């Protein structure tokens, strides 16, 4: 396959294939984001609150539950997108040979991979929409500003989906996803200003947090949920766009190397 005409709108057909599968079990796909935030809110407002007390964020006094609610959406976006392009995509590629079958049709590798990443963003976005609805009705997300969380969730999903696809392109066996899961995703989950403000961290750790895409997504979702954030929204949004583009390129490169024999 040469570079000529490597990419076209045909990628939407692959995206649609994933949508058809998703709709089949939409009840399951909807239940998790529907109840997950409710459980967290319940746990934190009943249990944790008495231990932690109030928090000051961007000059606002917040209850711990108010502080953590936007982060729940951001982490859900991360898990959904990253799981989709790692485990799910790997199963499609390696065990189900779905990509191999697609490569006997007019689809190109680039179209398949971009479709998978865009799909992961879509799926993450769908989860975020439900969580936004739940958290808005509980009073933890402002309305209508909170609606801006929908495109932000999609952007964040693209970023996490792209890096997940990169790991899928280079990983030899499915068990090895444990490495990025525990050495990349878990620290990011904990140290991105999710459960405590990064200002509580030592200076060097704050700098590391800045490199985490989750940090920027958490900040942006806090902005639309609470009305203000501690860092620059433009910088955070640009960081996510750049992160997505860089890892999309890398994942295309890795996947071409892996699939073209």
């Amino acid at each position, binding site marked *: 396959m040469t570079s000529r005409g490597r990419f076209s709108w045909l990628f939407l057909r692959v995206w649609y294939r994933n949508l058809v599968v998703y709709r089949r079990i939409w009840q399951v796909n909807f239940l998790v984001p529907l109840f997950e935030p409710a459980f967290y809110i319940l746990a934190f407002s009943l249990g944790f609150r008495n231990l932690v007390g109030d928090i000051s964020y961007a000059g606002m006094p917040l209850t711990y539950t108010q502080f953590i609610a936007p982060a729940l959406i951001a982490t859900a976006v991360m898990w959904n997108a990253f799981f989709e392009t790692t485990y799910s995509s790997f199963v499609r590629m390696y065990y189900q040979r779905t990509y*191999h079958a697609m490569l006997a049709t007019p689809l190109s590798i680039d179209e398949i991979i971009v479709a998978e990443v865009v799909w992961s963003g879509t799926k993450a976005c769908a989860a975020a929409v439900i969580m936004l609805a739940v958290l808005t009705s509980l009073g933890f997300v402002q309305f209508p500003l909170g609606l801006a969380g929908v495109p932000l969730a999609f952007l964040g999903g693209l970023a996490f989906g792209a890096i997940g696809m990169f790991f899928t392109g280079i990983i030899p066996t499915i068990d090895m996803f444990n490495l990025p899961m525990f050495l990349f995703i878990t620290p990011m989950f904990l140290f991105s200003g999710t459960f405590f403000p990064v200002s509580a961290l030592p200076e060097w750790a704050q700098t590391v947090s800045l490199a985490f895409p989750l940090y920027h997504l958490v900040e942006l979702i806090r902005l639309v949920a609470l009305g203000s954030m501690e860092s620059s929204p433009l910088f955070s949004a640009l960081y996510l766009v750049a992160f997505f583009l860089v890892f999309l390129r890398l994942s295309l490169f890795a996947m071409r190397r892996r699939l073209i024999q």
Partner: protein
Amino acid sequence: MRDSGPQDQRAKDRNSAGERPGEVLRAAHLRKRYDGFEAVKGVSFQVEKGECYGLLGPNGAGKTSVIRMIYGFSPLSSGELGVFGLDIRKDWREIRFRIGVCQQENALDPDLTVEENLLIFAGYFKIPSGDARRRSDELLEFFALEGKRRAKVMELSGGLARRLTVARALVNSPQLLILDEPTTGLDPQSRHLLWERLFELRDTGVTQVLTTHYMEEAAFLCNRLMILDHGETLVEGEPEKLIRDYAGESVVEVEGADPELKDFLSRKEVRHEVLDRRTVIYTDDSLGEYIRSRFCTRKCTFRAASLEDVFLRLTGRELRE
């Protein structure tokens, strides 16, 4: 089964620009190298419109590598490969719009139903949904899959899954159908049904390229075939002619090794092979009859020569894997 139209016309126009009319596929000096290993070493062949062309060879002969180059999955290491007069390196997408591929592994989509497998696949060829639905109904009927429309792919038996794979390869009404071991692992009933269907398709003008391990299948389906081994062509031609040229009219298999028979065969210069337990003699009917009456003291088989005899003579009898 086929809707031809402007595409056919365009194929003709292109062909007039150099290719012989009616030529669907032309491979010249195809080579495929993987890391430090050459799987295909300069294979050339042409396939005419409406023909079924077979690629035969033991495991590791390079059949699947050739097939994968034809549909643009594997880049050529060197050589030329044209389909419908188009260059696979440049015009892979246009070529793929017009071919159907039935891969060796059942790569059906297990997340979808039988019918969805056809409909979603049709989408990859930009077939509008109304046409896709009509086409998939047609194919489900043609391959006796109507009752399984809503079944999950995981629930299908090997034979049904294979039929669905071939049906899916036909969803875009291809002018060239590529089949990589279409009947491996099927029971005789499923195999014969598939053969009938492939035969019917050939009659309607669908050109086919197929690989197989079953000589009976190749002899039944293919107008012409190539036997390759270690990435090189051994012979090419019509099955009947290959049998005549390389195995003769008939075969006598005599159990045991009779020194007198051995002597007779070398004196008369009759083609034969001495195996562990029997001697296989490639001959014509009259000499075969004579050998049978004179040397068959114990168990003895007298039969028509087959493609399998040609295959084993040319590729040897030792195990490959």
